[in-house]
């Protein structure tokens, strides 16, 4: 029986020739990641356990992105604790305000994740780096403490779902529509304890930004990871960012999958997820006209340069509807600079949108776009749970940058193909 891509990466990291689904292994970690919410809890556990040294200061990344620039005294305390730990242990990849970006956009941009590597992060959307052909997955703070101390972590080898992509995306349809469609098909626990392995000729047509968006939301289907094969686009992306040797794994021809889901990219339409689960998907034309109060464009899911280009192309020369607040958050400083050079920031501001420094802020109801009772946001983020972005009676409709931008202009949920 052959192995999937994920199983091969885990076998190598565990020093084994072969692994099987369900097997418990201990694997070597290439990167341990944390943010300003999860790292302080990990530090407290690390110190409480009496650990005094990190396993490798170059293989830990701490990114202060969630409640930053700090929204209140308590979040400032958390950042202070993380900052002091990073200084004490001389953590190489420590990103504070001014350098930081939304972690899952920043880590690939800085070349901290590469094909074949094992990356764990105390943030559920760490699965994003599967787009690079890495095994990457979310963990908790105690796991992060263990990873920082030892460079090792236990895993249950996952079985897999093969997601075969065919064809090519149509205009105004992007990676977000692919992953929302998939979650709608298999449900929020459809890939529980499993890996989602993307394959098929359709992969080649997807940009790296589309792949990051798709892998990012594997967790919203319950997945342990969501991984793409390594191709020319992957190598082009890491060129100039990653200088260490890395290995492109591919699934064995006789790898075993628990099931296969086929997605015909040609037929996909702009898709949204209605409150309060990412599996509540509809094609946007079915819900066009739904009243909204706010639009958020950004996050680890959709705050990359191609997302901003898509939104700006729709908003250029137009105005955000008077009943809507529109908040645009480029995910990193590099993306912000690039958006400035291309005139995208000017487009957003002239349209009447607020443009922010990088932060996760509104996605988790932290700051920069929290909702009151009964309000509704079209958001390019990843979760629409009860109370996620504010009051428990507020609502989130998850959408692509194209749908979000079209909705900001229309003042209600709108189909970008109709704007």
């Amino acid at each position, binding site marked *: 029986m052959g192995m999937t891509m994920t199983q091969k990466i885990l076998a190598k990291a565990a020093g084994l020739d072969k692994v099987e689904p369900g097997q418990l292994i201990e694997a070597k970690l290439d990167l341990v990641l944390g943010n300003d*919410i999860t790292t302080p809890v990990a530090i407290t556990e690390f110190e409480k356990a009496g650990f005094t040294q990190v396993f490798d200061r170059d293989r830990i990344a701490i990114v202060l992105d969630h409640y930053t620039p700090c929204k209140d005294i308590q979040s400032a305390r958390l950042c202070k604790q993380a900052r002091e730990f990073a200084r004490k242990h001389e953590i190489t990849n420590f990103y504070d305000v001014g350098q930081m970006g939304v972690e899952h956009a920043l880590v690939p941009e800085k070349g901290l994740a590469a094909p074949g590597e094992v990356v764990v992060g105390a943030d559920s959307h760490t699965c994003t780096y599967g787009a690079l052909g890495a095994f990457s997955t979310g963990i*908790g703070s105690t796991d992060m403490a263990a990873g920082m101390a030892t460079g090792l972590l236990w895993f249950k080898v996952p079985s897999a779902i093969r997601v075969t992509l065919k064809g090519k995306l149509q205009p105004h349809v992007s990676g977000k529509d692919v992953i929302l469609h998939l979650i709608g098909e298999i449900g929020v*626990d459809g890939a529980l304890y499993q890996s989602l392995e993307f394959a098929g000729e359709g992969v080649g047509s997807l940009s790296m930004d589309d792949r990051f968006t798709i892998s990012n939301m594997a967790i919203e289907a319950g997945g342990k990871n969501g991984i793409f094969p390594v191709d020319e686009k992957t190598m082009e992306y890491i060129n100039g960012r990653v200088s260490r040797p890395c290995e492109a794994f591919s699934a064995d021809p006789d790898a075993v999958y628990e099931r296969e889901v086929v997605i015909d990219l040609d037929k996909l339409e702009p898709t949204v997820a209605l409150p309060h689960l990412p599996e509540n998907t509809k094609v946007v034309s079915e819900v066009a006209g739904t009243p909204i109060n706010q639009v958020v464009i950004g996050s680890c899911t959709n705050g990359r340069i191609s997302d901003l280009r898509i939104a700006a192309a729709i908003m250029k020369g137009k105005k955000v509807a008077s009943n809507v607040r529109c908040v645009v958050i480029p995910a990193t400083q590099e993306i912000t600079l690039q958006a400035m050079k291309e005139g995208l920031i000017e487009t957003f501001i002239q349209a009447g949108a607020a443009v922010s420094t990088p932060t996760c802020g509104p996605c988790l109801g932290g700051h920069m776009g929290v909702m009151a009772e009964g309000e509704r946001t079209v958001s390019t983020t990843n979760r629409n749970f009860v109370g996620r972005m504010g009051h428990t009676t507020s609502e989130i409709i998850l959408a692509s940058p194209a749908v979000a931008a079209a909705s900001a202009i229309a003042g209600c949920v709108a189909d970008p193909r109709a704007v």
Partner: protein
Amino acid sequence: MKVYKYGANVDTDVIIPARHLNDPSPAALASHCMEDIDDKFASTVEAGDMIVAGANFGCGSSREHAPLAIKSCGIKCIIAPSFARIFYRNCINIGLPIVECPQAAEEIQAGDQVDVNFTTGVITDQTTGKTYQAAPFPEFIEGIVQSGGLLNSLKARGVAK
């Protein structure tokens, strides 16, 4: 000792809303536990109570604050048909007992008196008299639980400094 019962896909945002993550002290987390799904939970929960819920319990964010909040309330066990995987490992790592048992999760009702024998995996609903057999943890995971959590087990092995 009483049972709190919830549906499927209870996410970590309702277990502990992100607006309360700026104070990770156990007492603060406990005081807001479950407040977006059950505003009476934090004020009525007592040490030894249990949560029985639907599938995919603990989905969403990796925040360990969620199982910490539940543990800090004194909840002694969570029974569900399945758990989201990060939540599952967080519970093992911090020593909050969880049991996967679809039939027990479906049949046990709010208010029932329930006992769980973690060694045998036998769940007894004293109110209805029914018993259920949950699958025990694999040996490796049981070892972590027995050590009192992941970091204690690593210390015992001498793999960290």
